């Protein structure tokens, strides 16, 4: 276990202690923080490890939300629905990945971006199953008090975050992670020395989608009502990228820190500038990319480098 991984686990443990200090508002923030961290860590498997600019997060988030919502309306329990959703997303993404991941660069970005559009339109038109544009109501899962409900979903999201973090660490330390790093550096060369790049990329895409979809499922059960323009919002694709860029691409600890930092900024902006919050978000993105393109991790690495030169 590397130091960065240990730090990530400690960070998650600190978040777990949140209910000791705050009320329902803190729990709501904590739940969103965990959700953002799940999205960012999952995106990092494809975008950070393999270096593929995926904009498909919103597609799988929405897919997960609707799959869980529909299953729960059929009377299944929350846990069973989320597990079925995650497995379905894994299979769907692995199959789509085998096809879409043959594209590179701009073409992959466009294709993954369109995936969310296609799914949104399908959900919009399948009125019998999903309620279409009217949205979908989801039955209460826990049914206890307001605070108890908040606590329940906070720990559900936290548990999922822990699972995502463990998955990321396992991938980073395994042959799969090594293969993805090879693909990022030079895909043609790695396929020439016998790496099954399609298999590796599809596996990464599937794993990433699986946890995103599970987070979407828990989110749907948490808010009790979803509609296509909410859960297939393109911002769900872009926010994880901004978080990852903020923290530092490829480093799970950096990405998780980026997610928490991003949520903090977003909350401040929401509170103070509700009318122009997307504009402020845009400004944040522009500033970040122009002045700190390698994220917060780069600040630390830069300091180490300078020290090493003096030694």
């Amino acid at each position, binding site marked *: 276990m590397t130091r960065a991984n240990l730090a990530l686990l400690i960070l998650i443990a600190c978040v777990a202690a949140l209910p000791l200090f705050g009320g329902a508002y803190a729990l709501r923030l904590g739940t969103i923080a965990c959700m953002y961290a799940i999205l960012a860590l999952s995106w990092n498997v494809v975008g950070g490890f393999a270096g593929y600019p995926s904009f498909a997060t919103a597609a799988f988030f929405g897919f997960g939300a609707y799959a869980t919502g529909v299953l729960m309306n059929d009377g299944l329990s929350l846990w069973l629905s989320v597990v079925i959703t995650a497995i379905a997303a894994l299979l769907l993404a692995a199959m789509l990945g085998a096809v879409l991941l043959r594209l590179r*660069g701009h073409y992959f970005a466009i294709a993954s971006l369109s995936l969310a559009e*296609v799914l949104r339109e399908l959900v919009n*038109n399948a009125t019998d199953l999903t309620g279409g544009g009217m949205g979908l109501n989801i039955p209460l899962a826990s049914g206890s008090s307001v605070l108890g409900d908040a606590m329940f979903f906070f720990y559900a999201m936290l548990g999922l975050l822990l699972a995502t973090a463990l998955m990321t660490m396992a991938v980073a330390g395994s042959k799969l992670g090594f293969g993805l790093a090879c693909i990022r550096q030079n895909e043609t060369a790695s396929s020439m020395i016998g790496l099954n790049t399609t298999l590796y990329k599809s596996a990464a895409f599937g794993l990433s989608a699986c946890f995103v979809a599970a987070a979407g499922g828990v989110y749907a059960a948490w808010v009790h009502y979803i509609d296509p323009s909410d859960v297939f919002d393109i911002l769900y694709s872009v926010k994880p990228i901004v978080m990852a*860029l903020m923290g530092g691409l490829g480093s799970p600890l950096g990405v998780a820190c980026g997610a928490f930092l991003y949520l903090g900024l977003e909350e401040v902006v929401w509170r103070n500038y509700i009318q122009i919050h997307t504009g402020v978000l845009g400004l944040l993105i522009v500033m970040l990319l122009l002045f700190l393109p390698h994220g917060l991790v780069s600040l630390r690495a830069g300091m180490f480098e300078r020290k090493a030169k003096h030694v």
Partner: protein
Amino acid sequence: MHAAQILINALVLGCLYACIAIGFSLVWGVLNVINLIHGSFIVLGAYLAFGLYYSLHLSPWYAVVVAAPLFFVLGYLLQRLLLNRVIHAPVLVTLTLTFGLDLILNNAMIYFFKADYRKLTLVPPLGSVSILDVVVPVDRLIATVSALALTGLLYLLLRRSRVGRAIVAVRLDRDAAVLMGVNVEQIYAIAFGLGAALAGCAGVLMALIFPISPLTSSGYLGKAFVVCVLGGLGSVSGALAGGLLLALVEGVGSTFFGPSHATTLSFVLLIVFLILRPQGLLGRKGFE
């Protein structure tokens, strides 16, 4: 006659789609940047036409003349000051940057113009012409002809002028263009400015036909994506072919499956094309 009407509608709409996509295609082809702010530029152009018509009673076809230089300067400066700093960064960075810029512009438009749908209504209305049973509204016809004229103008510019040849040279081989003495940074800025100008003019023409709202920008952007991929990147003829194909597919699709499925169909077509023929209808392989 029903088929003829579908065909004429597709022809009219296809030229407009081409006009929407052509600036986007130019920027993608020359700068290798997916310019997500394109949709908001189109909407801004539509607001310009709306404002000019209701404050100065300037007809939209004259507003094109005002919009083109304004948007060119806007695009030129945007590229010079911001995009140029990350022009060699990976696609993830440039795409996210233009997304951030789009958020800013779109939010500004919602803030200043409100999200209400507006419509530019010409007084007196132009009516429509009908040949046999095929009916075409005159404002749509004017917009289509103007869109075709703009597309032709860009074609001439790229073919005949010195700047145009330089843009094509950079598009074909950036390094070789540098060796031939082309100022690549300047060409990038000019190409981006041209892309913005075309978006602004397209927006002015859209104001004649469609309702205006900041919320429509993502729809225009989606059309630009699909047209570019269908037709092939960075060529004028490709954008025209892509626009016509998209309009035809949407027209036929909404007749047989209902209008709500037309968008789904176009995006499915986009993904199929990306996988099977990423160079587009008229593109050449390896020239992506």
